[in-house]
């Protein structure tokens, strides 16, 4: 199993994709931290909050600044997850992978471990950007850079979010055999369809309370406990651990179902 995991890491780090994505991660982390660092530290009145402008405690503000790049980040690890399996089918390297490790469940297990690791590595890259840039902006605006220990929990959970989205990608990459289609569909769902669905479901009372908080994007946001929308119609986010469980459930179902399919199918 360790051999298979090592092979998965090497697969990832021997194509050009990895450093391009690493740069994107760093830039997104730093850039969005600066942006949110300015936005969330604007003086606010109660009226602003009532109009739905995001507000929060200093801890939540710090969380939001440091995880500002997270939405872009998990989109990128989603892509990584899709590519980690999709490119194997596309370029037919899956043949030599399964020749080397004929117990396919072992291969899938190695991919899961490697993707969690890769998610964490990219998370660290993203955090390096956002912490450096965010701490400077927060301090400059007269806010404490690390107001509570809770900030560190958020940073750690940010890494987990990235890893779990990579696993969601792994599942999507198997279930949608065409890699390009898998990329378009997954990114489209995560960034466009799901937010729209969230808004629409939010108009419906029961959906607003019982469905929207459980959507993957909302669960991811709950995990990092950032600023929240005020106002009457605000979504009540899950607690961080419930968010983590929900997102882990998505990852487990998608990666699990995908792996089950891979283990059974003919490779020809």
């Amino acid at each position, binding site marked *: 199993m360790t*051999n*298979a995991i*090592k*092979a998965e890491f*090497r*697969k990832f780090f*021997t*194509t*050009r*994709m990895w450093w391009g994505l690493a740069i994107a991660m760093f830039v997104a982390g730093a850039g969005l931290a600066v942006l949110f660092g300015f936005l969330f530290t604007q003086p606010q009145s109660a009226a602003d909050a009532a109009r739905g402008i995001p507000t929060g405690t200093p801890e939540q503000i710090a969380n939001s600044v440091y995880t500002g790049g997270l939405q872009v980040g998990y989109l990128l690890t989603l892509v990584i997850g899709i590519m980690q399996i999709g*490119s194997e089918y596309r*370029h*037919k*390297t899956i*043949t*030599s*992978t*399964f*020749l*080397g*490790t*004929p*117990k396919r469940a072992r291969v899938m297990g190695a991919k899961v471990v490697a993707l969690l690791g890769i998610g964490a590595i990219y998370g660290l890259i993203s955090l390096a950007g956002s912490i450096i840039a965010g701490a400077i902006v927060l301090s400059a605006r007269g806010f404490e850079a690390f107001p509570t220990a809770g900030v560190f929990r958020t940073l750690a959970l940010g890494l987990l979010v990235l890893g779990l989205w990579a696993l969601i990608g792994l599942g999507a990459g198997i279930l949608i055999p065409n890699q390009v289609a898998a990329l378009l569909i997954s990114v489209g769902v995560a960034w466009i369809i799901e937010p729209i669905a969230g808004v629409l479901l939010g108009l419906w009372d029961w959906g607003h309370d019982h469905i929207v908080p459980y959507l993957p994007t909302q669960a991811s946001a709950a995990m990092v406990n950032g600023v929240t929308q005020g106002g009457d119609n605000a979504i009540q986010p899950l607690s961080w651990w419930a968010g983590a469980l929900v997102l882990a459930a998505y990852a487990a179902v998608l990666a699990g179902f995908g792996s089950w399919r891979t283990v*059974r199918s*003919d*490779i*020809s």
Partner: protein
Amino acid sequence: MTTTTAPPTRPTDGARIEVRNLTKRFGTFTAVDNLSFTVEPGRITGFLGPNGAGKTTTLRMLLGLVNPSSGAATIGGQDYHDITQPMSVVGSALEATNFHPGRTGRDHLRVLADTAGVGAPRVDEMLELVGIPAAARKRAGGYSMGMRQRLGLAAAMLGDPQVLILDEPANGLDPEGIRWLRGFLRHLSTQGKTILISSHMLQEVEQTVDDVVIISNGRLVKQGAMADLHGAPRALVRTTDHDALAGALRVADVTSTVEGDAIMVDTNDLRLIGDVALRAGLPIYELHRAMTDLEDVFFELTEGTNRNLGEGVTGVTGVTGVTGQGAATERDAIAGQEGGNE
């Protein structure tokens, strides 16, 4: 060497490939039809059949990539899935084994080396062996067919396996490459390794293989030694009076038949024929061994409607004994085309 639990077995026992009643259906289409054969260690076996005969499908079942509909295939008595460290027992290069275009050949091997638990020195050694150490540092996207074949072979050899299974290894190799491959495989087989190579052209592997397994439409049509394929030994002689020579040969207990402007003698003892002719006072204009043309042998064996080339619906059930005009003309057309390449 193939198992850690079984008592040490002689290599001849450990590395035999056995295919028993193997069948693969894709929907209603039977790609491999109740196929059985064995491949012996220390010999090079050619796995032959026309395009679409089911060679690749069979090899993929043997290697655990395609699930058989029924039957079984084992290597050294084991199902491929059950081999603990498969790359050190079986090395394989399949037709469609492709490479990530953005990864260098060397990195491709290093990924496999991780799986096999061998290090970078072994990777470089294998690249040296197949003759592409420099090229392997470029991205595989730009590789020629011959380079891909060599890289595939290097990958197969990584774990120093006892069994080598190669799908169309000569495809895309230049004549020099084919000669090199032949020598390479010959060398490995003298070490007692089991070697199975597929091809859709008998002539391509004629000088390489010891044994043949020939399939057509998913079914076995012949298994045996390459030497036996040529049929009974014969010699061609040209002289002034063929009937006189035939008579003289009959006295020497050798049968013969006059065919056109030559006489075909049922022996390959050229010396005997020369002596008989000399005694009979007949001049010899031409004298050589006549082997049945392998191309003909191959077509004869695999004749029938190729289910993949039109009219396939009836062909699906296997060789239906159709040897009609259509089959013959198609056969001749291909023969003409391929003969031109020789």
